């Protein structure tokens, strides 16, 4: 039957022998085109985003070039823009955050993967997942009204008293500053380290652990010297993920860092981060150079998190490959 061509070709790609119009009316082809357009929109939006960041930062890029990254002065009135204080603040707080979050997160992940019975491990992981769902502004709220006073009244004076000979712990204690921001960030990124590390540790083959125990190792020795090294690529990936998160955090940081473009070795000093300065100044930016300098900062943030996320994904891929290729004859 001549009409059967339209019904039979539903399952596969349409053949060239059908007329253009009949193909156009075919439900499958329409569905394919329509859904393709939506999928393509995603790519389009992403491309547009990158282009916009690049285009809207061209003035300062041409004007300042690479010196943008090493100049300290951020003077909108004189139209001199140097990103160093913000880069410094972003990196410094991220470093503090990781220094606190990695041991705590890895330790928790080890507990959840190696020691806790399955039900407890799953329940605790559930709470950790909820922790990851808490919005940044609420961490900021707690940071401002709970952490900052505690820092100002108890912790910072105590640190000054005991370790004040180090430049890290000098200067007046306001409560806000690099240390406080680092602490709040640490709490925000711990869930990422825990979830990913726990998963990777759980996927280490049983017989690695057993081989270590069978040699007379204690439980800690088998965990720390065999299981964790086996999972180290995945754990590294989780740290990159956490770092990417920490660098891009805006609200919580701007609420506790002090928002002053200072470069100081002291943890107690107020500072500024890239995300915070964009948040505070973008809509107030008078003049095209000012505006574009902030966009350029956004571009920098984008590139750095892009690279870190890419590396983290790479590590995940490497981990799964390792798991499947182990001990094969």
């Amino acid at each position, binding site marked *: 039957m001549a009409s059967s061509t339209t*019904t039979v070709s*539903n*399952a596969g790609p349409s053949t060239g022998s059908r007329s253009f119009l009949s193909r156009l009316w075919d*439900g499958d082809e*329409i569905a394919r085109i329509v*859904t*393709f357009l*939506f*999928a393509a*929109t*995603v*790519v389009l*939006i992403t*491309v547009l*985003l990158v282009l*916009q*960041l690049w285009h*809207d930062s061209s003035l300062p890029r041409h004007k300042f070039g690479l010196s943008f990254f090493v100049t300290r002065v951020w003077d909108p009135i004189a139209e001199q823009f140097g990103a160093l204080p913000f880069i410094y603040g972003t990196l410094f707080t991220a470093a503090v955050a990781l220094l606190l979050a990695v041991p*705590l997160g890895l*330790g*928790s992940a080890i507990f959840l993967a190696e*020691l*806790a019975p399955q039900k407890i491990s799953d329940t605790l992981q559930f*709470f*950790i*997942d*909820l*922790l990851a*769902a*808490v*919005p*940044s*502004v*609420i961490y900021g*709220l*707690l940071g401002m*009204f709970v952490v900052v006073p505690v820092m100002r009244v108890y912790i910072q004076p105590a640190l000054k008293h005991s370790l004040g000979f180090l430049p890290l712990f000098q200067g007046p204690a306001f409560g806000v500053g690099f240390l406080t921001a680092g602490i709040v960030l640490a709490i925000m990124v*711990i*869930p990422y380290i*825990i979830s990913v590390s726990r998963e990777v540790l759980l996927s280490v083959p049983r017989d690695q652990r057993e081989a270590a125990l069978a040699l007379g190792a*204690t*439980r800690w*020795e088998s965990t*720390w010297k065999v299981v964790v090294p086996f999972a180290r690529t995945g754990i590294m990936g989780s740290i990159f993920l956490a770092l990417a998160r920490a660098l*891009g955090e*805006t*609200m919580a940081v701007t*609420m506790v860092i002090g928002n002053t473009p200072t470069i100081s070795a002291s943890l107690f000093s107020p500072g500024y981060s890239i*995300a915070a300065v*964009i*948040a505070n100044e*973008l*809509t107030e930016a008078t003049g095209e150079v000012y505006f574009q300098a902030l*966009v350029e900062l*956004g571009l920098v*943030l*984008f590139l750095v998190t*892009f690279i870190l*996320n890419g590396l983290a*994904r790479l590590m995940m891929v490497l981990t799964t490959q390792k798991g499947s290729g182990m001990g094969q004859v």
Partner: protein
Amino acid sequence: MSPRLRWRKFVSNFMLTLTGVCAAVSVSALFFVLGYLVYNGGTSINWDFFTKLPVPVGEVGGGMANAIVGSAKLLLLASLFGVPIGFLGGIYMAEFSNSTVAFVVRYAADLLNGVPSIVIGIFAYAVAVLPFKHFSTLAGAFALGLMMIPITLRSTEEFLHGVPRALREASMALGASKWKTIAAVVVPAAYRGIMTAILLALARVAGETAPLLFTALGNQYWSPGLRQPTASLPAMIYAYALSPYDDWHRQAWAAGLVLLALILIVNIFARAILSRGGTVLR
């Protein structure tokens, strides 16, 4: 037992206990957050909070009705923008695409997902605010919708892939066309997973403040229509927290409690549905 072995066993027990302490500390953070919100904001949650507008600066009282409605409007619009793109794009990925196109789209989605929310804000500002020369609810919804796209797309793709081949083949064997199979069989089979993923995306986006600072901005009053700035819960929390007024601080805590409670409830609900369905959520 040799002294060396005794030491090793001591170290083992000590370190393992330490990991337990780490886990306890990490989990307790959640309860600290909840605890402080309840303690500081619980008493401020009253009928006024949900129904009244903010009162002028310096006065006591009032509520956040406009912020609640504003957030609801923003989320609804954001879904209308982001979910269809993600959903239909996900259908393309799972059902029609070849591996090259799929790779490119997936890469773009992952890239978009990893963009810090402040940078999404910059983009939305440049595209949806500057050309029109004013802040608006639409711009805010655009920014939030952008953030919903990658999650929706990847989840749709994943859950559709999870539908067994046999189901599709049974439908096609009965003479249904591909798109009919997708619409009537595959999507309904994956429906639960996709819905919960969308809910989780909403929960995540509901708490976002940074992109709204440049798009919806804020508003002390109602925001009629879509083309004016609007208040939202996260932006209100931020503004009130930064203010010097104790009463506004009190309200910020209350708003924080309401926001977090909603987000956590959606999260718990969504995960419970997913786990009952036998799926593990990443």
